[in-house]
């Protein structure tokens, strides 16, 4: 195991975050705060409470998830796309570093950043609304697993994309809509029956539901199902990453 390489990649990637601190951390925190102000404080008062939780508090887990999802994808995809684009990937390819070590370095850094971001958003949210966390262990578990899974997805995207447009279009056309329609702003039970069925095809629903359960003990789908879905998504992403390195797809001639 080339631990020095993992550490080098990890530190390098986190340093990149540090350099772009405002864009990568402050930006999402500010925009999430705006959601709380608009939906939680301003409009939220007019909504009835959802499942016994005030609408403002109900929003918290979903908004955290939404930021974590989109930031994981964009951050991890950028991290691996950049060296491909600039050509510096030659160094990684010529180094005594295995696929597994590469993934731990890049995905680990992206996921770390997402967890930090999620935590900061939670802390910020506390300034606007009152909420409690019923199952802290599971809260952290869902946060970490989601960060890792979507960082893996971002890593795959960063290897697949062969232009800046593709790199941005996937988050814009797929991840953001799925996140918005994933039950961050509403409970699935509020939807008409047909859409309740359709929405179950959206993997984000399971994440948001499980994450919200860890806060308030209530969920749209059974929490075990949420866990199975996260594990499944992670397994699929890992399999794709493994295949990429085995075949050298888009990495080696």
């Amino acid at each position, binding site marked *: 195991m*080339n631990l*020095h390489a993992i550490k080098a990649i990890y530190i390098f990637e986190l340093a990149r975050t540090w350099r772009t601190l405002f864009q990568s951390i402050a930006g999402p925190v500010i925009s999430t705060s705006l959601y709380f102000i608009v939906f939680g404080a301003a409009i939220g008062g007019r909504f009835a409470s959802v499942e016994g939780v005030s609408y403002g508090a109900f929003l918290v887990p979903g908004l955290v998830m939404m930021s974590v999802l989109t930031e994981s994808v964009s951050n991890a995809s950028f991290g691996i796309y950049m060296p491909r684009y600039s*050509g*510096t990937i030659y*160094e990684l*390819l010529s*180094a*005594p570093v295995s696929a597994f070590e590469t993934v731990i370095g890049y995905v680990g850094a992206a996921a770390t950043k997402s967890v930090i971001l999620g935590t900061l958003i939670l802390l910020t949210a506390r300034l606007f609304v009152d909420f409690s966390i019923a199952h802290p262990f599971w809260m952290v578990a869902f946060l970490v697993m989601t960060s890792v899974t979507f960082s893996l997805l971002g890593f795959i995207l960063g290897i697949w994309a062969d232009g800046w447009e593709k790199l941005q279009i996937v988050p814009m056309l797929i991840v953001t809509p799925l996140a918005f329609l994933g039950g961050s702003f509403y409970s699935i039970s509020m939807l008409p029956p047909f859409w309740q069925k359709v929405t179950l095809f959206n993997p984000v629903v399971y994440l948001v539901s499980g994450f919200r359960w860890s806060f308030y003990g209530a969920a749209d789908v059974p929490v075990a199902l949420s866990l199975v879905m996260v594990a499944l998504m992670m397994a699929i992403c890992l399999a794709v990453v493994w295949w990429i390195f085995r075949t050298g797809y888009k990495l*080696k001639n």
Partner: protein
Amino acid sequence: MQPIIQIRGLEKTYASGFQALKGVDLDIRRGEIFALLGPNGAGKTTLISIVCGIVRATAGSVTVDGHDIMRDWRAARSLIGLVPQELTTESFESVWATVSFSRGLFGKPPDPAVIERILKDLSLWDKKDTKVMALSGGMKRRVLIAKALSHEPRVLFLDEPTAGVDVELRRGMWEMIGRLRDSGVTIILTTHYIEEAEEMADSIGVISGGRIILVEEKAALMEKLGKRLLTLQLLNPLDAIPPEFAGYPLTLSADGRELVYSFDTQGERTGIAGLLRKLGDHGINYTNLRTEESSLEEIFVSLVKERA
């Protein structure tokens, strides 16, 4: 002693169907400077990229200090440093950070003293906190060299190290490469400048069209390649070369108006002065004289012909 790099039957066909390497066998001796000389498109970069693990070979095998690059890739790659042909550098990192990153990537624990020595050797020390993108092209090239040396490799590949580098810097680069060799590092560099190979290398391999045409020690090769020609335009045509000049490597053109003398640029003396004096003594006068050297293209053509 076992060669540090052993290449056998190496072939590469790119996805486009183009065959860039057509069966390369090559041994590189420990501790030497080996110049891979060949025109653009000959397959130099492809060959280097396969040894370094960036491109997959279609067939054949490579070992680095006895380690097969496929089966024993970790050990093989740990021994190698690569300076690529293109100036591909991180932009926003400082020189210090990017060189330290490379050391970690190659599995070595951090060692500020080593990085400091490398940066000082390459005259980059005062730039250590500068962002790479703020450096000139020549300095970026040196940053790439520093990155390649950061993990103290035993073998250093330099792909066209002096392309686009001005004459003065080129000399500095050559000196630095010489010092590296003295410290025991085996150096393989590619170039399409024959002077560069001539200046620096211990051995020279000529590659053309994906095949190694020949590998020789520099001295032997220069004897072959280093011939220059002195052409004298005669005032009065000759029927034949006078017998007094039998010992000289002279040829007479068909019309008898040009006398061509071939001489060795590597030799102590060219013998030109003596020849001209003797011609004068024998009353052979000339109206004009010019020297020419065989161009790289001519050399390649003659080498390929020789082999055929």
